[in-house]
């Protein structure tokens, strides 16, 4: 689990992430990578995933449970027609969780 804490100067890296995302660029700046390491680390319980229930290109938001045998929580009403949109949605959710503030860009 990363110990990094989001601060107000990090907003520009959120912009970098959005740009990289839609350019399919996976080479991030060290500062953005540090934020992503924070967002993507952590325990299994409560971790966001995306769930594809059939062959259609629709991905639902999901959350992993704590233990084997428990159901993955699937949000039927929160879905995406693009993986990139799902990635950006979860980034914003995690931004709020870690900074306490909405990401308004």
């Amino acid at each position: 689990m990363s110990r990094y804490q989001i601060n107000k100067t990090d907003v520009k890296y959120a912009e970098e992430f959005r740009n990289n995302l839609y350019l399919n660029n996976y080479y991030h700046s060290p500062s953005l990578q540090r934020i992503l390491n924070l967002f993507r680390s952590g325990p299994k319980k409560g971790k966001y995933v995306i769930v594809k229930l059939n062959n259609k290109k629709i991905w639902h938001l999901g959350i992993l449970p704590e233990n084997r045998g428990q159901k993955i929580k699937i949000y039927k009403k929160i879905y995406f027609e693009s993986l990139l949109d799902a990635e950006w949605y979860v980034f914003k959710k995690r931004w709020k969780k870690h900074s306490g503030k909405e990401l308004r860009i």
Partner: protein
Amino acid sequence: MNILGYADKFSVMQNESVEFKVSCQNIKKYNAALLKIVQGDINDKGPGYKEIKLKDNLGGPFNARYQKIPIGSYGIIRNKKIFHKLKSLSLSVYIFPTLLKRGRKQVILSRKNNNGFELFINNEDKIQFNINNYNIKLKKKIFEKNWYFITAKYNSKNGSVYISEELVFKQNENNVINVNKKIIKKNIDFTNNDCNFFIAANSNNGQIKNFYNGKIDSLKIYDKETKLDLSKKTSKTFAEWDFSKFISSDKFFDKGINKLHGKLINHPARAVTGYNWNEKNQDWKINSTNYSSIHFHEDDLSDCNWDTDFKFKIPSKMKSGIYAVKLFNRSDEFYIPFCIKPKKKSRKNKILFLMPTASYLAYANNRIGIDVPETELVCGRLIEMNKQDIYLQEHPELGLSFYDLHEDGSPVFYSSKKRPIINFQPKSVGKLGGIGSNVWQFNADTHVTGWLDNFGYDFDVITDSDLQTEGLELIKDYSVIITGTHPEYYSLKMIETIEKYKNKGGRLMYLGGNGFYWRISYDTKSTDIIECRKSEGGIRTFETKPGESYTSTTGEYSGLWRRNGIPPNKLTGIGMVSQGFDVSSPYYRTNASYNKKVKFIFNGVKEKIIGNFGLSGGGASGLEIDSVNKDLGSPDNILILASSKKHTDVYMMTPEDMLDPAPGMGGTEAEIIKSDMVFFKTLNNGAVFSVGSIAWAGSMAWNNYKNNVSKITKNVLDGFLKKTKFK
């Protein structure tokens, strides 16, 4: 997923039968068809899914029935009348519980239906002893991962019961012996029952339940009340099970007078340290008395033991290849792939595809991405779940892989094929296959077989199991052997056989990454079960505990082949250097690629950049990658034809190379992180071509196999098939 199944074999010959074992839920009937699997990737940017239907119906529709997966390991001694002689009794045992605080019963030993005796950890984590309906328990809870010496006694003459626990390694002066005793009833008839004796579980109306998690050591029964303490000066035993004997088997040995030998079910861990182990002994073969314990798990599984639903005899004219039986109804399907190997005296094809079934087993039903939260970090993106993942998460009884931990956090040492393997199917989408097709192991390997099919090559197929059992005789006549994309797990015999083939003039095309990495051993009885102990280095979910790095099945020192003196570099010229599962990178040709010696490899290839495209991360170098290291045995005559240059920082150096962790060990900075495409000659005009990337095959399949990666691969194969001498 309402249909699951498995076959009794991975590999079969013409005129032999394969048995299929099926379990269904929520349906009444299902059908079965026979198919040839050509290309299993369903990505619409790929070359297209291809299966060839050979038989529509294998005798169905079949009646659907449910067959339970009997997960959980235990020991059993079939009902013995000698137990009826017991009037009074004393028990002693060492235990090392590994999973408590779950509010449920875990049985240490049991010979009890309604009547009988049973020693267990109760749902309050206290030791309890029951005789018929009487019970006695200790007041203090026990704690995880401590060795305890437990005794329990019943004296039929005075009706007394006694129970005690004592920490074997005292931590402070408060660690006294905890004792409880009381009078219950004289002459209790607890032997008047016909039941089996269980270790680490019990039986309730035929259902095996209440599994124990942890080690059990030196279990003894006396037919009278007797003094029992850590001094070990005890009287003659009624039964005295010595788990340090027959460690490589599924048997356990009673050195008492009654010879109550038993059998282990579902392969609990053996060759694990006992209560009396110390650091002077790292190898159970040197002094097995330090390994007198067995580690049982509620989630061990080595054999579903399902009944056969139907069998199929392979027609004599069926060619060697990869086939599958598809079980299906209107809404569900489940594939059971298998290999038809060539007849012994009619191996006609020059090309052999070596299906890496040991590696398929290592990854069987893995929970990467589900149980391993770091997966999102190494994939550099959100983890995508599909129906198979949802099913796996909800059904832990499907068993574990070498990438999972047991519920108690201990390593998984064994993986068995005698169970449904839901990621060993065509159409399967994995977690680590990179952006794009995201295929892994078996389904990624169909990029290679699909490519062979596309260009009309005839080829034979064998599995790792065949290589293990038949050795060099099986492969020596092939002109070229082609590997899968990730042949990571190799036994000594397998690796020696490939080395001998190579040096007898054989030609090896290693079309993968991170191959020949972990040393495994096979079960002594069959190749259905593999074992791996991940000691010393390597990218792994766990490391072995001190003293537990030698396999129980063969006594070999397991772990990296690099630590065992046969680094993959010696075999293939290259070895594992990094992994990352986001995007892949292209190769850049070196000056050596223009050398006349390798002109045949680049015929018709004008580009300097190779594989800046692909289905597995968008490039030919990626996922798990290898490069040359002469210190590790890459041969002096090796030619590096092309290398990747830059990977993302999701790629990190391996632990075995990261001897002194320092900044700059990620893919954008560390020079070592690259794939090397190499060629070298071996003895007797043999040769090796290695690509050092799992993603390579995903690029072979790009643009309907029309691209420079495909071209290079074809040039090499055609060149290797010719008998001309390499310069």
